[in-house]
Every structure is written in C-alpha cells, then in structure tokens.
C-alpha cells in the first residue's frame, strides 16, 4: 500500500480540517483519509478470505457428495451451512504439536510464509473496478504471479523443517512440480499479455472491454495451458503428488496439525482464488458483464439481483421442508439476507444519483461468479481424474506444455501482426494461429513419443527418481 498515487487531493478536500488536532494525529488522519479504501479492502481480504475458504471447502464436499450420489454434511446447520465454522473451531482448539528435532523457527515460519504470500498476492487483484488494494502498481499481474510463487518457499521450508522423510519428499516433489509448471503458466500469461499490451490489471480488463472479446477466445490454447498449469501449481488433483495420501501420508503437511495446518490450508485455498482471479482477469474478461460493450443488451444488468433473489426464493422453498424449527428460521434468515443483497444490487439501477456504484457492485458480482466457476472446474476435475505418476507429471510439464506454450506465444505474436499490419479480423487470425499451434504441438508430441519409444532403455528409466526435475 505504499504505492500512493498522486491524485489524493479531492478526498482531502472532502474531509473538514480539524485544527485542534495535534500534528501527528493529523498526519495519521491524512493517511487514513488518503487510503481508507485500501485499508478497508485489506482488512476485508484478511478477514473474509478464511471464511470464503471454509465455504469453498463446504461447497467442495457438497459437490463431491452430489457427484457420488450422497448428501454430504447435513448436520451442522441446515444443509451443513454452519459446517465451516465448526471445522474452524475444531482446528483452532486442536493441540499444537511441534515434533522434536524439528527446526522450531522455520517450522513456525513456513505456514505463515505461504499464507502471507497468498494473501499479499491477493492484494493486487482487482475484484472489480473499485475494489483493489494496490491501486495502480504498473507491474500488477507480475506482482500477483511473483508473490504467489513465494508460497513455494513456505511449502519447501515446512517440509524440510519438520525433519521427516514424508515431509521432505513431499516438499521436494512440490518444488520440482511448481518450478516446472510455473514456466508453462508464465508463457501462457505472456501470450495473454501480448494481447493486452500492458501489465496493469485494470488496463488488461479495459483492453478486453475495448477489443470487445474475452481473450479466452483469442488465445484458447493459452487458457488451456494456464488451466492445467494452475491446477498443478495449487497441488490439486490430478496433480496432488506432494500430498498424495497413498504415497506420502500428507506430503509436506504430515507433521503439521491444528492452527499451523489450517494456515497451510488457508494458503492453498487462497492460492486457488488467486489463480482463479488471474485466469479471470486475463482470459475471462475480469469483472465485465457478458457482452458488456453491446449496448442494446444493457438490460442484462438486471441479472445479478435476479440471480441472488432466485437463491433467496429457493431458500424460502427449502425452509418449509426443514425438520427442526430452528433450521426453518435460519433458512428464512438466509432468504431475507439474499433478498436484502438483491435489493442492494437492484436499487442503483433505477435510482439515478446512485448510478455510479453500479459498475463496482456488479463488477464484483461478475468477477466472483467467474472465479467460482473456475474453481468449480477445479473440483470437477479433481473428482473425475485419477492421480498422475511423478515421471508422467514431469513428462507432461517439460515435453508437452512448455513447448506448446512457447509455440503459442509465437503464434499469438503472429496473430497480432496479422491483425495489426495486414488488417485481418482478429477472430480469423486467432483461429488460424491456434490451428497452426495445435498442428505443431501434435507434431512435437508425436516426435517425442517416437523418441521415447525408441529409447525405452533401463538407462532412460533410471533417470526418473523422485528428485528429478
């Protein structure tokens, strides 16, 4: 939050000067006046992210249950709506164990590092035209990537500090995994940045607004690469080797329990949110409403309140079916909350003086919707796909994704040149270059498969040890 922008004057004038205050207090006040938005946003993030993470877990469990034809948590609160809170309480009350021979300092430091990294990187994300902590840092997206990659240090240090074989193997695995997949992700991001032409997050979204099309349509391959790579970066199935229960008990978290464990846990889910937000910003048009630059479709602005209201209606419907009166009342409360939020979203549409809040609110709504969709894809894949073997993982990363990503960067560049210099329609350019990229990728993969088939020798096999990569 140090990146104070120059344009603070209007807010200063909006506050009356209090002459009797001492200078220091005045200074503090000026700080607050200058940056109240940033401070509130930071507080909101730090306060809300754990809650969100808990509810993401609940959603995950519910989804798993649904896909497995079960009910999932139903006891705590109606439909287990209070389950996350119960979990949090349990975790906080657990005994906090530090194993002997563990390096105390680093054991204590590691979860904090990964948590802090995730949170900090969240700071640069724009959850909407209004809600951003680091306002106009001009390397925004890089900041997000770099800082979130610091979480890696937390993981590897934790694994090393707990002085256990499972932990260190998990740590080294995850290090190798992250290092190899960050490359691919970086290339994917680069090809999106080529389209955007800037590093500032808002500028990226504005670029999509102006070009009138989300970059997922102009660089689909890049989006695919980023999807896979981000799954691997967050150590989630099918790439969850660092914490593969069947192989290493819990990977680098084996020796952790209670509060520290929950820190790691939060870090992971925060990371999911971060990568989801990055993907949303880069490829899915950030906080933009679908068809945001088609004016005769502006009536779509009514959608957010309608959706929230629909949720409320559903809650009312479920309320009648609750076995216990307490739960009925709770459902009614939820329904009322939903209606209230819907009202908050709806009113500015119709009351002219409040129009200026519309982009902020709706943008936040759309942004969160897209992020949750992205996370929903994560969960879907996790429940669907089996786990990879480590050498398969490395193989996928180094032999397929990275070459594909490199080729894709070139392809996007070519597409831009075609569009800019030769005046092609960008749809056409994107389609052509993507097809070319796919062809080249197919050629590469085929070539590599031939070579591996040729050289399937014990020498080649013995190279894939857990420290590889």
């Amino acid at each position: 939050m140090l990146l104070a922008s120059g344009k603070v004057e209007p807010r200063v004038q909006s506050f009356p000067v209090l002459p009797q205050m001492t200078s220091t207090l005045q200074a503090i006040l000026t700080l607050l006046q200058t940056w109240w938005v940033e401070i509130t946003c930071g507080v909101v993030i730090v306060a809300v992210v754990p809650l969100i993470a808990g509810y993401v877990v609940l959603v995950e469990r519910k989804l798993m249950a649904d896909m497995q034809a079960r009910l999932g948590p139903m006891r705590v609160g109606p439909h287990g709506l209070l389950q996350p809170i119960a979990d949090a309480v349990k975790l906080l009350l657990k005994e906090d164990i530090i194993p002997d021979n563990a390096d105390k300092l680093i054991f204590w430091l590691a979860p904090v590092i990964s948590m802090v990294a995730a949170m900090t990187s969240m700071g640069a994300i724009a959850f909407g035209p209004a809600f951003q902590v680091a306002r106009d840092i001009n390397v925004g997206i890089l900041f997000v990537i770099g800082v979130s990659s610091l979480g890696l240090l937390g993981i590897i240090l934790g694994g090393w500090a707990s002085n256990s074989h499972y932990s260190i193997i998990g740590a080294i695995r995850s290090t190798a995994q992250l290092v190899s997949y960050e490359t691919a992700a970086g290339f994917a991001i680069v090809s999106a940045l080529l389209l955007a032409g800037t590093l500032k997050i808002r500028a990226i979204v504005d670029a999509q607004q102006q070009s009138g099309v989300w970059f997922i349509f102009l660089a689909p391959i890049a989006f695919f690469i980023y999807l896979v790579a981000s799954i691997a970066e967050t150590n989630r199935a099918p790439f969850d080797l660092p914490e593969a229960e069947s192989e290493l008990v819990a990977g680098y978290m084996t020796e952790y329990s209670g509060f520290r464990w929950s820190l790691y846990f939060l870090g992971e889910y925060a990371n999911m949110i971060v990568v989801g937000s990055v993907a949303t910003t880069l490829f899915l048009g950030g906080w933009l409403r679908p068809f945001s630059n088609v004016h005769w479709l502006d009536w779509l602005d009514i959608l957010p309140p309608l959706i929230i209201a629909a949720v409320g209606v559903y809650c009312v419907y479920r309320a009648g079916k609750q076995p216990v009166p307490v739960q009925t009342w709770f459902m009614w409360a939820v329904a009322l909350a939903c209606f209230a939020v819907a009202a908050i979203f709806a009113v500015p549409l119709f009351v002219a003086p409040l129009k200026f809040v519309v982009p902020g609110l709706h943008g936040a709504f759309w942004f969160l919707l897209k992020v949750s969709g992205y996370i929903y894809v994560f969960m879907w894949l996790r429940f669907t796909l089996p786990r990879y073997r480590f050498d398969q993982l490395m193989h996928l990363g180094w032999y397929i994704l990275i070459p594909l990503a490199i080729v894709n960067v070139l392809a996007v560049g070519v597409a831009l040149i075609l569009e800019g210099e030769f005046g092609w329609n960008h749809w056409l350019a994107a389609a052509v270059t993507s097809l070319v990229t796919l062809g080249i990728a197919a050629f590469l993969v085929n070539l590599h498969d031939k070579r591996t088939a040729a050289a399937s020798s014990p020498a080649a096999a013995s190279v894939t040890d857990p420290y590889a990569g």
Partner: protein
Amino acid sequence: MLDSIVFYFFAGVAVASAALMVTRRNAVHSAVLLVTTLLATAGIFLQLRAEFIFIAQIILYVGGIMVLFIFVIMLVRLDVALQHIRFRLQRWVALFVAFALGVEITIVLLFARRLPGQGLLIQEPASADKLPPNTEELARSLFSSYLLPFEIVSVLLLVAMVGAVVMAKKRINDQ
C-alpha cells in the same frame, strides 16, 4: 517522511538479516535470512520507483534462485551445524580488512560531501509522479539501445543452463 520511514525500515531489515545470514551456522537459516534480505532490497527498489526491478528481484531471486539454493541444500543433506575450525585467524583478518575498507569509503564519502559545490547529491531527482511509466521505459531502452547486451545475456543464460545440466547430470554408471 514516509519515504524515510520506508527506507530505514527496509535498510534495517536488509542489513540485520544480512548480518545474521553471514553468522548463522545452519545453511537453511542463512538461506531464509538471505530471502529476507532480498525482499528488503526489493522494497528498496520499490521505494526507488523501479517497479520492474522490484518484481524481477522477487520473481527471479526469491522465486527462482533462492528456491534453487534451498533445493540444493536439501540435496546435499547439509543440515549439520558446521564448526569454523580452520578459519579463525582468517576470520579476524577478514573482519579487520572489512572494517578498514568501510572506514575508508566512509571517509571518502563524507569528505567528498564537504567539498564545496561538488557534493555527492548532484541534482534533485524528478518527483515520483512525474516519472515515465517504469516498465515501458525499461523495455524501450532494453530493446533499442541495449539490444545487443540483451542478446548476449540470453546467450549467457543458455550457456549457463547447458553447463549446469552437464555439471549436475547423474551419470548412469555412477549408481
């Protein structure tokens, strides 16, 4: 005022953790402390309005090089505390020499400051908000006037990559 707060904070962190890094006996602790130093330095860069260097420092140094260091430390299994047996005398000599060097440079700087009209502070730097956007500026000069060095550096990186692979390659007949 805010500037000075930020600078002293980061400089203090940097120097303190650097000193700790040199004196700690556990290599991993040293690595963590070095990470801290680097992050503090990155803060200094940010305070200097060099955002791209700042982020490059974070991504390359902290996210890349330091991870590599810690990785290697774990590979060579060197978490035993190392005694400084052989280097006692050398350590004292080194401390003395470093001290002498520091004193010399300090004298130089202070003295140079007092020279009439030709202090160190030669011109008042442009204020933060009048700076051109850092990244674009950097990119422009990097790809126009420093293109050749840029290519050379990329070749250097390639060479280093090949060299590192050759060095660390585990020969099949070794095990």
